[in-house]
């Protein structure tokens, strides 16, 4: 068996070995056996591992602001679970409001000659409060972080 092609084949799989991407245990065992018997390939593995480690440590980034957890707590307190910022419920509330307004107009148009009934004192028709699910713009500021992507689904929490 020619050792050079064998070494080349092993080195081509070194990163898969280091990255734990080998699904076949027999192939892994075969590679490990070669590395145990071939100093040149073992050295190549060490270099590749060092390179991988340096890649993990080379990219430093500044840490978060010290007050970030306090800001997160304050924001979470403003919008506890169940209070929806924007999204589908805001749209639904808009539709409900539009439906109520449309229905009122339709009733008026169907009975133009009918004098407006005196509303019972216990049911003020005009002073209906807004649906509670529609936050105002000031309650739901656009902080630049967009809506949850398709991967974020709190209901799928396991």
């Amino acid at each position, binding site marked *: 068996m020619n050792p050079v092609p064998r070494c080349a084949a092993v080195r081509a799989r070194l990163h898969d070995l280091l990255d734990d991407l080998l*699904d076949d245990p027999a192939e892994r065992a075969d590679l490990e056996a070669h590395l145990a018997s071939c100093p040149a390939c073992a050295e190549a593995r060490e270099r590749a591992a060092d390179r991988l480690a340096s890649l993990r440590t080379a*990219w430093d980034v500044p840490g*978060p602001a010290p007050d970030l*957890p306090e800001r997160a707590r304050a924001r979470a307190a403003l919008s506890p679970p169940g209070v929806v910022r924007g999204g589908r419920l805001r749209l639904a509330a808009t539709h409900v409001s539009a439906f109520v307004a449309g229905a009122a107009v339709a009733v008026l148009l169907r009975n133009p000659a009918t004098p407006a009934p005196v509303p019972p004192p216990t049911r003020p028709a005009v002073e209906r409060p807004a649906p509670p699910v529609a936050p105002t713009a000031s309650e739901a500021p656009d902080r630049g972080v967009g809506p949850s992507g398709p991967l*974020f689904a709190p209901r799928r929490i396991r």
Partner: protein
Amino acid sequence: MDGGFQALYARYGREVHAYAARLTGDPYVAEEICQEVFVRYLQHEQALAGRNGHVAPWLFRVATNLGVDRLRRLLRGPRGARSLAAPEALPDPAPGQPQDADLAERIRRAVGALNPDLRAAFLLRAHHALTFAQLAEVLDLSERGAKDRYRRAREALAAALAPHIPEDER
């Protein structure tokens, strides 16, 4: 409960922030994303309490969704994603920097040139040492799908960095 949050933030806060910073290439956006991740954690704290220490994938999942969403919106925008981690946004390495610093800069550029999905997969695995099972959970993929995505990211990076890495170390 509050002490629980403090402990959780002490354990994962810096890690999530670093991930968001590498993913978006912008420390201000990273700050915003990191804060949002922990706001959402606090909002779902009771539901997440039953995960018995498996909160990290959930945190990275939220950070990934927010970061990838932000990157995709920028890519659709008039300026593309130039402002976030794209190669043009990174300065040239200073003359006289050691070779490793130069390579680190090239790695940053190459990672910044990956599409957001590949970028997330690579960073989560290579920089934040998630297992493939965790990566699959974060990216909502099968474990094989997570491996495939990471492999594609690594191959794209290897191609980009090939001229700068000795042949036997690629």
